[in-house]
């Protein structure tokens, strides 16, 4: 099992335990967490599963792929630690991952 801490923009925290293999987005959505919309269902084509990855975890989440970069580059709220959570695959390495959701998904 892999533990993830999701922090809403308001500061409200949600701790989730999930099996490795799914994406961070799936972990959020399947646990009914607010703050991640995932309109396209994980196809890297809507940018509404946007998260900010805690700096200490950022490198472990891996490289941003070109499709993800193209979508993120259009985001109005993009920061250095932005990722699309549907593109972060969970492994044991990411046990304890901390992400924050932006105020809006757009």
């Amino acid at each position: 099992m892999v533990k993830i801490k999701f922090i809403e923009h308001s500061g409200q925290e949600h701790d989730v335990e999930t099996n490795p293999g799914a994406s961070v987005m799936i972990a959020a959505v399947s646990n009914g967490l607010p703050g991640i919309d995932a309109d396209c269902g994980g196809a890297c084509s809507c940018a509404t599963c946007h998260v900010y990855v805690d700096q200490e975890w950022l490198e472990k989440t891996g490289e941003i792929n070109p499709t993800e970069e193209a979508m993120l580059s259009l985001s109005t709220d993009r920061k250095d630690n932005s990722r699309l959570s549907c593109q972060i695959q969970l492994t044991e390495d990411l046990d304890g991952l901390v992400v924050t959701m932006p105020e809006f998904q757009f």
Partner: protein
Amino acid sequence: MTDASGDQSKWSMVGQDPWTMPIDKIDLSHPGIWQANEFLPFMERLRLEDPVHYCAESAVGPYWSITKYKDIMQVDTSPEIFSSEPTIGIVDTYDEYTLPSFISMDPPKHDEQRRIAQPVVAPANLKRLEHLIRQRVCNILDELPLETEFDWVKEVSIELTTQMLATLFDFPFESRHKLTFWSDAATAIPGAGVVSSNEERWAAMEECLQVFTGLWNERVNAEPGNDLVSMLAHGKATQNMPPLEYLGNIILLIVGGNDTTRNSISGGVLALNETPREYDKLRADHSIIPNMVSEIIRWQTPLAYMRRTALVDTKLGGKQIKAGDKVVMWYASGNRDSEVIDRADEFLIDRDKARQHLSFGFGLHRCMGNRLAEMQLRILWEEIMQRFDSVEVVGQPKRVYSSFVKGYTHLPVKLHGLN
């Protein structure tokens, strides 16, 4: 206002049997079956028998019809193969009538321009607009007569979206009807009731450019504001744009926010009337409204398609598409694909994954106004449910003569108050 008569044209499919006609003759592009509300079985046949379908002859030349959700997603998310240039309409444009705007551009130019325009409709800005939108909604609804037949399209759908556009552009409120006219003129088929010729359309576009150039000149030297004109005038990537490009982006934003929202407003009323048990669900629990809004947008699919042009030879669904071929993504069909959408042929306001529809597209060109559209519809239905037990459709709707704009020109209704 005359409706162009679809069944006079040799290209019209009105009256053809969708299941027995030769499949290679199926031509979704002709407006006839859209106005007659007969398009569904033709799309269904293509999904089942020929999902990547070549139409060799049509009034708009040869083109491919893509009708399944997954294939549409594939095309929509592959801009390096399927270009949005020179146009996303099915009619090939001619230079003198071409309006450049970022909907019909590829990266990198697309990205530069979209980044500038996007903030005006980002949720942070929408939050500020919400109370004003609600005010406008309440003013309109409070003026409507009870127990008296009127045209919902004219009194609500058009009026509300027009007021919204005027707000977004900070356009002179008393001239707001011009926004609707310019938008309708930009996409209308000449002879279908808005403009009678391409020349007339161009005259309308020139007037639009003149007026918006005036607004630009006012605002470029003023402090940057929250309206779209100001954003374009002050944005680094857009402040030097040629007049035709400015006009193109203005038209894009007017059109994008005009008949789409209008037809979703009308479409929601019609859908609830056609499926009364869904209207009962809504009455029983107003908290379903946000979900319902997404379902309405799926059900209506206000823009039936978007067109791309293949940049290279490519394979899709086992078919060989050649560089230069016209490829049409039929969102209206993908939204009924039961392979991806559960019970796709049912209007279900509480369905799961309600936002996973194609009406806004996906990928780089995904509709920038999607959250604004959803917000308008949400506020509208919140206020409707505070006032009326039923918006009852009391006559036949009339549909737009177009295979692109999927909507209504008339929707006769009667309002019944709460008990």
